[in-house]
């Protein structure tokens, strides 16, 4: 399982999510995540049909999307999905 994180430096919600993810990543060192600033990688917007930021996409081992969260979300919501797709 891998989590793709999409955000932008101009987006307040992305800034709010930054420390939440930092904490989760520190507590779950095995977790693989990748961050994309949408201004640096504009092609991602179409590829993943992004309509708002931040967006977090869960991919399985075959890089297929299995779930996503959008906007400001709580640590619990993120951890729920991490635990749910841990084995994928």
């Amino acid at each position, binding site marked *: 399982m891998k989590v793709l994180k999409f955000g932008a430096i*101009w987006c307040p919600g992305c800034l709010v999510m930054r420390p939440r993810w930092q904490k989760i990543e520190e507590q779950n060192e095995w977790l693989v995540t990748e961050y994309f600033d949408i201004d640096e990688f504009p092609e991602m917007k179409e590829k993943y049909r992004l309509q708002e930021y931040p*967006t977090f996409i869960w991919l399985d081992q075959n890089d297929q999307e299995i779930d996503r969260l959008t906007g400001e979300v709580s640590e619990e919501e993120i951890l729920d999905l991490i635990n749910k797709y841990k084995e994928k």
Partner: protein
Amino acid sequence: MKRLLSLLVISVLIFNIFSFLPTKAEAVFVKDVPVYFFRGEGCPHCAAEEIFLEKLVLEKPYVKVHDFEIYNDKDNLKLMREVGEYMKINVAGVPLTIIGDKAISGYLNDATTGQQIANQVEQCEIKDCPDILADLGHGALIYGQPEVLEENKIAAAEVDLPLFGKLSGSTTSLFALTTAIAFLDGFNPCAMWVLLFLITLLLGMEDKKKRWILGLAFIISSGVVYYLFLAAWLNIFLFIGMIATIRIIIGLVAIGAGYFNLKSWYDHKTGCIAEGSENRRKIFDKLRNIISRKNFLWALAGIIVLAAVINLVELVCSAGLPAIYTQVLAMAELSPVGYYSYLLWYIFIFMLDDLVVFIIAMVTLQAFGISSKYALYTKLIGGIIILLLGILLIFKPAWLMFG
């Protein structure tokens, strides 16, 4: 001797009686002076004249003001037209004041139109003035139920604040309304993104002093541009007065904006819209170029100009809030200092979240975002307020006359 004594006593008594008589202005023998006041509910000039007439009645109790509201009462409108035809005058608008055979159209202020009214009242005290409405056969209607304006509308509780003056119940509402709308406007995320760009760039600068100066210059310039924009709206509304069509259009805009905010709250959208990334990138590059200039003064000038331009371009994302607010403010009939103090307060509240974000970022050296959940609360409260404002602007504009 007896006669002399009697003469003296009678003289003293007469002298005493005269000494207790009122002066000319208060003379009990002065006949009533009817003032026919045609007005419209929600019309600011009518409201200003109404206040003047209240004072005039207090000063000269024999002035009898007969008040005819024409927007909601067709009979009164008919009566005004009838008077117009009889007096051969144009009765296109209100306020229209008839004293004797003189018609005074409009109301500028106490010093000009007010003085004109006072002079005409004085004329009618001295000479016999015709009573136009009685001549038209409406005497019984009028004198049966004279509607004298309320003499004392001063609210019991007043708070004295610098610049704003005395805040009574109604002006406190305006103060609270200003704060609520400015908060809603300020929390608009599309007003924040350029500042976040700037903060990201400023955090890369080594010189702490320059970081603060450039950031504050950006915030202050943004505030000044927005202030000028609000002042322009206010002056438009003050200039055109209370035109019903404009008021209804602004009311509809307010209902739309209220619905939009409530829908955003209901949908619980906390993300940033993905559209417009390309333009944002261009602005980010421009900001970077400005910040990286070696000449600090050029960088400062560039930031100020860019802040002004961006804020003008981004005005559209305020969803009509400045227009709605300034329309309500214009109806309050305040002094110029009062108007501009309210606008300053609006700007202060509007910029508050930007200031908080900037200061925290500069102190912690980390870009900081205010959680959208606060913006959601603002959308809920602000949405309800704006929706109500819209409904009142259309149906009960007089309730919004806070002054």
